[in-house]
């Protein structure tokens, strides 16, 4: 029972020509240790939603509970919440500002008021987790490649040792290799540290391979919420809201339509292979 969103509503710039109802009656429970993917096309409210989870944006309706406490209570310390729920923004490399990589990563832990030794330890540790080697630690963050910058920025949040890690489209604008590296590292962090991870993406393919649960956003509403298999079973409806299920889902349905009785709930290439092999063995008997 980590984060509960209760009838969350959010309107941008209410009462003006720019008014935008970005979130509509969102009810979600995010449990400890889950690996969740939030999916939706651009403008569906994903970023707005996750900014509520660490109190950066105050809902215009409804409330958020973190470990049972209402974060909108007067004496609730939002600053503490922000360190427990680490949020990596989209294009996080745009927020780097220090002269060296190490100093930039130290910014978070320093803000927590930790002793210098602990700050150093956490910074080195976080950089190691995202695969930034010792040779880059004293480089200027602005000399690094796009993928490296992004990993430094992610380390900046990891160094605060959050209980929940939220990443907003961490793979946007990266090449396939950089994308896989970052996603693998995130999966590893989830496995080793047993923290809750929420991955925002508009690519089903990215998410399907890693997460245990998918939340689909459309026009500010959470339309589907469940295990990847359950969500992808709605692949026709997903298409209507501008999303696509992973390609294997289509392949398996096509096989089935062609008269081959395979199961259709595979979400990754490996599962699809197993399903087809299972059918093949059955057939040979």
């Amino acid at each position, binding site marked *: 029972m980590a984060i509960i969103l209760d009838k969350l509503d959010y309107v941008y*710039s209410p*009462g*003006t*020509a720019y008014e935008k109802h970005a979130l509509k009656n969102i009810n979600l429970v995010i449990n400890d240790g889950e690996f969740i993917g939030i999916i939706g096309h651009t403008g569906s409210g994903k970023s707005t939603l996750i*900014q509520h989870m*660490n109190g*950066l944006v105050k809902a215009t309706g409804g409330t958020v509970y973190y470990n049972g406490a209402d974060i909108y209570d007067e004496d609730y310390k939002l*600053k503490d919440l*922000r*360190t427990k729920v*680490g*949020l*990596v*923004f989209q294009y*996080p490399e*745009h*927020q*780097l*500002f220090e002269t060296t990589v190490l100093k930039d990563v130290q*910014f*978070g832990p320093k*803000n*927590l008021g930790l002793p210098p030794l602990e700050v150093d330890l956490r910074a080195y540790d976080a950089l190691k987790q995202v695969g930034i080697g010792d040779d880059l630690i004293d480089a200027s963050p*602005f000399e690094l490649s796009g993928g490296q910058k992004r990993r430094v920025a992610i380390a*900046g*949040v990891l160094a*605060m040792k959050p209980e929940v890690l939220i990443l907003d489209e961490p793979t946007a604008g990266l090449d396939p290799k950089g994308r896989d590296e970052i996603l693998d590292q995130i999966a590893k962090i989830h496995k080793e540290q047993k923290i809750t991870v929420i991955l925002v993406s508009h690519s089903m393919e990215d998410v399907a391979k890693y997460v245990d649960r998918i939340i689909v956003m459309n026009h500010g509403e959470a339309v589907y919420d469940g295990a990847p298999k359950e969500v992808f079973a709605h692949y026709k409806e997903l298409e209507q809201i501008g999303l696509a299920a992973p390609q294997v889902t289509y392949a398996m349905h096509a096989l089935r339509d062609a008269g081959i009785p395979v199961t259709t709930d595979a979400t990754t290439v490996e599962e699809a292979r197993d399903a087809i092999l299972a059918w093949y063995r059955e057939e040979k008997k």
Partner: protein
Amino acid sequence: MIRDITIGQYYPADSILHRLDPRVKLSGTLIYIVCLFLVKNLWGYLIAALCLGAIIRLSKVPFGFIVRGLKTIIILLLFTVAFNLFLTSGTPIFEWKFIRITKEGVSLAFSMAVRLILLILGSSLMTFTTTPNQLTDGMESLLGPLKKLHVPVHEIAMMMSIALRFIPILLEETDKIMKAQQARGADFETGGIIKRAKAMVPILVPLFISAFRRAGDLAMAMEARCYRGGEGRTKMKPLKYHKPDGIAWVAIVCFIALTVVSRRF
């Protein structure tokens, strides 16, 4: 929040004022500002305020939205009022220790405050109802005669329009960077002046970098489309006066006349 800064923004609506020729709006605003400084007494301010109120009604821009723009100048406003109130010499009406308020001070502080408010409201109304593109078209056309004196009118207008266009973008960017640093535990709200100034570094550095990056991108995009300044450049939509523009000019002349007459009371 930072988004409350509304000066220089465009507010989309379908009103007579939005459709007016930008040259009329520009000259009208300029005349309005000059008139504000010609005003001598309460009558003059009343006329200016009433006219402004009527125009705001016509513009269909919500009053609350316009007033929000005043928030940004509230410090300036307070200083102006305080200076005029306490430092003007004349007949004292209130004295306590070293504080002395004079009759002249009160009337000066009042007129300065009203003038400033009317000025900001009037000029922000112009940007609310005119897109940056129209604004620069209008300016270029009004300043056209200066081209004969080799003033780079087109370039100045272009620079202005880019600057105006960038205001909301940079505000949005600031908002985003502030949130991102807050997510890393940055604190902009507490502490003394030095601590707060230091807290600005993590915002300003990324902001400057992004502004330069955007400027570079824009320059590149303009060059890719063969932009080379105003020489021989024609307009897709040349400015043309229509009937409402004539009516607006009549209204402006009436306003000037009223202001001049009000000085005699």
